[in-house]
């Protein structure tokens, strides 16, 4: 065999191999331990080039430094001589600050160690798959919540231009806008707290709904009285065939619901706003909120609602004798005894200097007196050490029950306060109660 005929098949095979790799639909990279790229397929370069801000693509770990800083340590921490370091590890290429989740690019990255200085990396673009997963999760949440409380949803039908055609009563109740105001208004007025970019934002949402059939988002909204609230809204495309000529009327259905903001900072802030700093009990404001809500609920369900107010006996004397530090310790100790003695669904709050209150939903006067007695004993039998000395404090209690009392939660509180005064007057460390009256 002559030399030329030996070389020709060899050249053909080599070229075939190059063609195969040039067209390979996966980014494959052969690199050293430090990340220096020895070989890579064109698709790898395509995926990485936008990340190589300096325009030089010689090191994979440098190119991915911002998007996946963890790769360095994953590789360093992998001690076996060879093996799979990570499989389908997701790398979010764009910074998360880039708002639109539908435009973010995600790469799936597999790294295999062949020997201590040779690694093979496979990269694929999985952005579309990640988007799909996110949308499925959103849909699940929605359909789950739909089953929980259908009455909580405001619904509007929209024309193709995004203007409101008709609304349900829940939407009117929740937003405070009159039906006439809403009709023919752009739907953006319901969900965008900032009118400056409301129109363009809503336009994008409608486009997305048009493309995918539906769109969900979450954000601030404003009621007609200016109050801000956090809500979720769903826009679904609807097409109805007219019975007359079979033509399609197109438009959208818009569904709105108010939700608690899933934001840890907000929850923490809320907690702080509701809590008395010294004792950790609910504060006065939180107690009245809870009391008003519980009153309406019990009134509607024709169930009794009870309140207990209690006041530490001779607290002023304790303060004057031992100082405010000891006074504070007494408040904390009494508060702890109360918290331990009330039932899980009762709400315990500090509503004044040395005055506390307990809200007992769905509870009769008899039961509330039993709870008060338990709390009274808990306080009286929990001595408080003050240096060498031991203090025994007591408290007086007033109980009252509604909602047959007129005047709402405040009336029940006033009645229990009057009973508390009675307990003080007749000797302290005891319970008095307002007679259960019928309306």
């Amino acid at each position, binding site marked *: 065999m002559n030399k030329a005929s030996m070389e020709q098949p060899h050249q053909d095979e*080599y*070229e075939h191999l*190059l*063609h195969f*790799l*040039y*067209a390979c639909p996966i980014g494959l990279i052969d690199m050293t331990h430090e990340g220096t*790229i*020895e*070989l*890579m*397929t*064109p*698709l*790898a*370069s*395509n995926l990485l*080039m*936008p990340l*190589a801000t300096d*325009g*030089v*693509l*010689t090191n994979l770990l440098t190119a991915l430094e911002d998007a996946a800083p963890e790769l360095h340590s994953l590789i360093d921490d992998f001690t076996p001589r060879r093996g799979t370091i990570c499989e389908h590890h997701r790398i979010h290429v764009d910074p998360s600050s880039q708002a639109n989740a539908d435009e973010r690019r995600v790469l799936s990255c597999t790294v295999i160690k062949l020997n201590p200085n040779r690694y093979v990396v496979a990269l694929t673009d999985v952005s579309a798959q990640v988007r799909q997963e996110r949308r499925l999760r959103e849909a699940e949440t929605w359909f789950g919540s739909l089953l929980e409380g259908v009455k909580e949803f405001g619904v509007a039908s929209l024309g193709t231009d995004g203007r409101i055609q008709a609304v349900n009563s829940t939407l009117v109740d929740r937003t405070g806008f009159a039906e006439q105001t809403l009709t023919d208004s752009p739907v953006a007025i319901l969900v965008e707290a900032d009118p400056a970019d409301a129109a363009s934002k809503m336009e994008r949402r409608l486009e997305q709904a048009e493309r995918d059939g539906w769109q969900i988002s979450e954000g601030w909204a404003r009621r007609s009285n200016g109050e801000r609230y956090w809500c979720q809204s769903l826009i679904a495309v609807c097409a109805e065939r007219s019975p007359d000529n079979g033509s399609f009327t197109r438009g959208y259905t818009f569904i709105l619901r108010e939700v608690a903001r899933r934001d840890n900072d907000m929850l923490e802030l809320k907690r702080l706003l509701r809590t008395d700093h010294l004792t950790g009990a609910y504060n006065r404001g939180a107690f009245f909120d809870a009391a008003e809500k519980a009153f309406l609920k019990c009134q509607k369900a024709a169930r009794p609602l009870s309140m207990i107010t209690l006041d530490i006996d001779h607290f002023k004397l304790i303060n004057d004798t031992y100082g405010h530090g000891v006074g504070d310790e007494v408040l904390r100790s009494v508060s702890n005894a109360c918290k331990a003695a009330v039932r899980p669904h009762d709400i315990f709050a500090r509503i004044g200097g040395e005055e506390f209150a307990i809200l007992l939903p769905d509870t009769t006067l008899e039961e509330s007196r039993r709870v008060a007695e338990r709390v009274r004993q808990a306080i009286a039998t929990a001595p408080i050490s003050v240096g060498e000395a031991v203090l025994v404090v007591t408290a007086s209690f007033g109980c009252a029950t509604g909602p047959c009392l007129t005047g709402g939660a405040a009336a029940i509180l006033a009645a229990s306060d009057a009973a508390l005064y009675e307990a003080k007057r007749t000797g302290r460390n005891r319970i008095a109660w307002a007679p259960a009256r019928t309306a």
Partner: protein
Amino acid sequence: MTASFSEISGSTLEGMNDEALDSLPFGIVGLTPDGVTKRYSAREGELAGLRRETVIGTDYFDEIAQCMNNFMVAQRFEDEPEIDDIISYVLTLKMRPTPVKLRLLKGNAFSLRYILIQR
């Protein structure tokens, strides 16, 4: 007639036969508006390890140069009516990352779109 990498015009390239194209010291690729490879110079074939006859007729950005199939190169040919621009780029010639200069040419005076490649 100027035949340097940064000066040569699209019309000049279009008038050259394969032999003349092969004599230039940089790689040349000519594509139809739908991305099919029409011209492919010997210098470029040498860099990529491919012979002209195996590349002509391929869909260039899908089969040969996926590394340029993005907003930095392929998309520009779609979006911009005329281009004469030189950019720094990294190609994967024979799968080795290779820093190059690319000159992108698109204009009304010539029918193909050209990519000039200088190592």
